[in-house]
């Protein structure tokens, strides 16, 4: 059985990726499960989707804990604990990362036992209008890596899953997908089916005994205000708004008023300051700034620049 997990952010088309790959497997005669999994978080937040495909009936259910292939659509998710990208990886697992960074770098950084492959991140992916294509290219790359899905089955799956979006989008997606499919040609078949997990061989985990705390300790009533600031939603950001203070006209705090996340504070002199721990990168401030003093920079470049300056 193939077990494949897609990791991305809400809005990057991971659910669609799992559906496309699932449909493609199905067209090749496989039994298939595909499902997205996300919590209460939204667009920009880490989500994952998974696909199981087998020539036999699939009796496994639920989240994939030991994937044969992990596809990471957005490399900024790798260090985010909540994304759990690295969960359950072993020497058998192939990791495919959509990234500007090389495979060797990732291999070393993450100390992975299994092979790492790179799906080169295109500059277009920094234009968010192109983001939905990330999902399709990821699905296509995965389809080639398993080595049992034909070009035709992939194209047919894309038509089936995206047909409702109109022929133009289907065409554009198919083109991007087939490119990714061909790009993975040298690695076709790298991903192989994992062992069947048998219920009879189930080993109980090493449970840790937890004493039951009193309710006031276990579920304290919280009287503090605005505790949501403890949640660093800045991790959602793929584009970073940066203020050019020479051009900022210290207006009536347009950016701060329109920012849905209260992530722009203005001091007594009218100087705005963006709170990058919480800015989700929606870029409403970039769109609304009257003197166009706010620029959007890809987050990975902004972070690289920060490291250089530090």
């Amino acid at each position, binding site marked *: 059985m193939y077990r494949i997990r897609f990791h991305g952010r809400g809005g990057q088309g991971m659910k669609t990726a799992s559906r496309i790959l699932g449909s493609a497997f199905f067209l090749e005669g496989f039994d298939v499960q595909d499902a997205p999994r996300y919590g209460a978080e939204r*667009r920009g937040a880490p989500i994952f989707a998974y696909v199981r495909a087998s020539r036999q009936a699939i009796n496994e259910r639920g989240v994939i804990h030991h994937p044969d292939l992990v596809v990471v659509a957005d490399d900024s998710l790798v260090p985010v604990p909540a994304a759990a990208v690295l969960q359950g990886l072993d020497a058998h697992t192939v990791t495919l990362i959509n990234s500007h960074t090389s495979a060797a770098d990732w291999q070393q950084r993450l100390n992975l036992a299994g092979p790492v492959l790179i799906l080169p991140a295109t500059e277009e992916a920094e234009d968010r209008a192109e983001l939905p294509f990330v999902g399709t290219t990821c699905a296509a790359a995965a389809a080639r890596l398993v080595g049992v899905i034909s070009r035709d089955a992939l194209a047919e799956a894309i038509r089936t899953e995206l047909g409702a979006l109109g022929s133009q989008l289907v065409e554009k997606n198919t083109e991007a997908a087939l490119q990714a499919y061909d790009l993975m040609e040298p690695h076709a078949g790298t991903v192989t089916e994992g062992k069947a997990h048998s219920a009879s061989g189930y080993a109980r985990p090493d449970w840790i005994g937890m004493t039951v705390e009193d309710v006031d300790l276990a579920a304290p009533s919280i009287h503090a205000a*605005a505790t949501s*600031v403890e949640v660093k939603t800045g991790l959602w950001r793929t584009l970073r708004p940066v203020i050019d203070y020479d051009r900022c006209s210290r207006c009536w705090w347009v950016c*701060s008023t*329109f920012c849905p*996340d209260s992530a722009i504070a203005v001091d007594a002199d009218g100087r705005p300051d963006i709170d990058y721990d919480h800015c989700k990168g929606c*870029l409403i401030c970039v769109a609304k700034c009257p003197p166009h003093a706010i620029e959007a920079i890809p987050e990975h470049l902004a972070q690289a620049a920060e490291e250089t300056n530090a």
Partner: protein
Amino acid sequence: MNESRFKRMKDLPSTHLLGSGTPMCSGCGGLEALHEIYDILGPKTVFVNAAGCMTLLAVYPFTPFRGSWLYTAMASAPAGAQGIRDALDILIEQQRLPVEEDLEVVVLTGDGAAYGMGLSSTSGAMERDLNFLYICYDNEGYGNTGQQFSGATPHAARTATSKGPHGFAGFKKDLFSIWAAHKPSYVATVIGAEPLDLARKIEKAMQLKGPRLIIALAPCPTGWDYDPRESADIGKLAVSTGVWPLKEYVDGRVVHTKVPKQRQPVEDYLEKQGRFAHLFEPQRNEQLLQELQNSIDSYWAEIEH
């Protein structure tokens, strides 16, 4: 009524009460409106939240609010507000709560609850002349579950449950009029993209007692299918094309607070949103576009005469 303290943009708050770090989508138009509204309401508020996107604002142990928050089922937020209002009144009467520590009870629901499931309990609360504030963030569909159509979905929009070349076959319910027909103290429409108009209306609502109800159109990048950076611009277009009339009902009269002088064609608003893409591609649906324009024109023809 006192003159507004919000005369110009500079009078708008430059510091904000609503905490950051909420799980709302990046670019959420509803959150934009709520954060502007909360600055005017102030911290002496208690929120009663019906199930919907904003339920997720206060997921234990995190909350962006400065005070308490109560979660109710979709249909019953106004009933929850009644309970809190009664409790506060009793505490004050028994002198267990000083009058100056009284709280404003604020219902917060999406359009699914406001236009549909919760309409009867809202009607009941108005009937009982409950002293509360109702804020509906209207993203024109059941956004929390994937944007299925609701009573607020506009004609021709694509939703998860209205696909095909014509989109949603029904029409957006006129909740403003339904609410105003109950003759409550105050009803208003607002939008985050017009913060000054919004601030004046919330300020006015705060000066009144009894049922006061606000509908905030909430541009929704996820459900309406557009880049999050366009949330405020699409909100502005909703007003300048006449799709979202800014108005208030007070003292038995409806007053339009911002009449667009030269209304932009509704197309300018529609073409920015993926949920209306089928009106333009693969070919323009002239008939449906004209129908949509006509319905807006006929609304304003009645207002302007």
